């Protein structure tokens, strides 16, 4: 008698199309070949994954068209199969996959569109965080400034693209919008995506602002992050950055001391 483990191994291989073991030994045919019966499940597995991706990446789907999206998602599923019973995690590597697939080609921007759509999915399920009280920050003794680190809102994501990413995303995420003609060479964008309440805001960032927040996201100290901002633009007014992004709700916490 076949063990439960061997049965699940053989059936899994049949589902992903790598099985060489004949399924007839495992499955009652009853007029329909075993492989065809397994095929019903293989089709379900493909369809569920594809529908999840279609919901999560509507802009990529619209940009490449239904048929090609289907093909891309099929390749993606083979390369980065689901690892969780929760479908929420399914799109995590799509941008990486598209970057590898289209790097250097004229479709290079698709990876960035996938990245912003994944960022959107992530912040839509991120925990709420109360705003930071600037007064509590003012109480930090000056001697501790060197080790002061700020925490970004869990519902905030930073993106940087050499393409006009926010414009591409906004024009393509909603099927009811007319597709606009966007010049891919119109210049790059740095973006802060931030959920407040149930609404998502898109903020286009100047280079110093992006460098500042990106440094904080990497775990830099406030001093290091301000230096990064000044490096991005020596003429930038960096002194106001902290207050601006606390007020916006992008910075929600801080810690003092060694990491």
């Amino acid at each position, binding site marked *: 008698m076949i063990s439960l483990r061997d049965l699940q191994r053989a059936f899994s291989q049949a589902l992903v199309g790598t099985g060489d073991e004949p399924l007839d030994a495992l499955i009652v045919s009853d007029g329909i070949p075993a492989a065809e019966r397994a095929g019903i499940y293989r089709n379900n597995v493909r369809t569920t994954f594809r529908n999840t991706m279609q919901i999560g990446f509507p802009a990529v789907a619209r940009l490449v068209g239904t048929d090609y999206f289907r093909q891309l998602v099929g390749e993606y599923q083979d390369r980065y*199969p689901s690892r*969780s*019973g929760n479908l929420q995690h399914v799109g995590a590597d799509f941008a990486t996959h598209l970057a590898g697939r289209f790097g250097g080609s004229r479709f290079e921007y698709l990876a960035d569109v996938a990245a912003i759509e994944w960022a959107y999915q992530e912040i839509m399920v991120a925990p709420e965080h109360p705003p930071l009280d600037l007064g509590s920050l003012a109480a930090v003794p000056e001697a501790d400034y060197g080790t002061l680190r700020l925490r970004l809102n869990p519902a905030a994501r930073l993106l940087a693209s050499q393409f006009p990413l926010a414009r591409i995303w906004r024009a393509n995420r909603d099927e009811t919008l007319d597709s606009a003609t966007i010049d891919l060479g119109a210049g790059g964008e740095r973006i802060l995506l931030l959920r407040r309440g149930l609404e998502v805001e898109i903020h286009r960032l100047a280079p110093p602002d992006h460098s500042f927040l990106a440094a904080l996201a990497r775990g830099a100290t406030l001093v290091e992050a301000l230096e990064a901002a000044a490096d991005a633009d020596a003429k930038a007014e960096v002194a106001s950055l902290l207050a601006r992004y606390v007020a916006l709700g992008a910075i929600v916490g801080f810690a003092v001391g060694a990491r």
Partner: protein
Amino acid sequence: MREPSAHTLGPQPLPVAAGIGLRAQHHSDVLERRPGVGWVEAHSENYFAEGGSQPWFLERIRALYPLSLHGVGLSLGSVDPLDARHLANLKRIVERFEPAVVSEHLAWGTFAGRAFNDLLPMPYTEEARRHLVRRIDQVQEYLGRRILIENVSSYLEFKCSEMPEWEFLAALVQESGCGLLLDVNNVYVSACNHHFDPHRYLAFLPRGAVGEIHLAGHSRGQYQGRDVLIDTHGGPVCEAVWDLYVAALARFPHTPTLIEWDTDIPDLDVLVGEAHRADAVRVRSHDLAA
């Protein structure tokens, strides 16, 4: 106006009045129109998020309706170890939303870490029975409560099976103390696909074990010139399934019943209409029995 809190209703059993499966498309409608259904059922995984609109809506809807949390991704039947993160998420939302019922499927869905996100059929062997009893024990122990196990639709049978599905389910109830979520549509679909008598299935399940009934629509596919019924949850409950529901109520009277609809999701009114039909069938069948 005071915001409703999840604790307005407190924990309580599901009422016998039929419920509906809660889908994100209907969140606002349910809150605004407060349809006359007995309760709602949410797919557990859809509310694992720590923030955002899904838990926001469920908290408010939970203040108005009793709740059942129905899992689709725990993969109880897999030989892979249970996913600790998945279990922890489940426990967190059970504590937050205080459902009347927590349920999962008699199925497997992962192997060697790869997830298929589907309800794959079990072989009904002694080994599988022991495995599932251990897994159900593990989940019940972790959550500190009894869970219900749902029968799934299947499109194949494994040659190694040593007993029919109904005997397998009855054994799980006896050995793990779990309850059953009897999906009448799934019994019908599998009965047609594998040529067994669905009444025999119902008659074998222990009275008192069935804590919830599911009703849903299915579709029909053709393979090698033969019909195979596929569990799509994409349409109204068919007449044959309503008939089988009457038979199920005769054996398991006053069981809370849910209308499921997961693909091609219609207006809320259509779902509510199906729930009211289930209520009418239940009232009539109990009147006849009295």
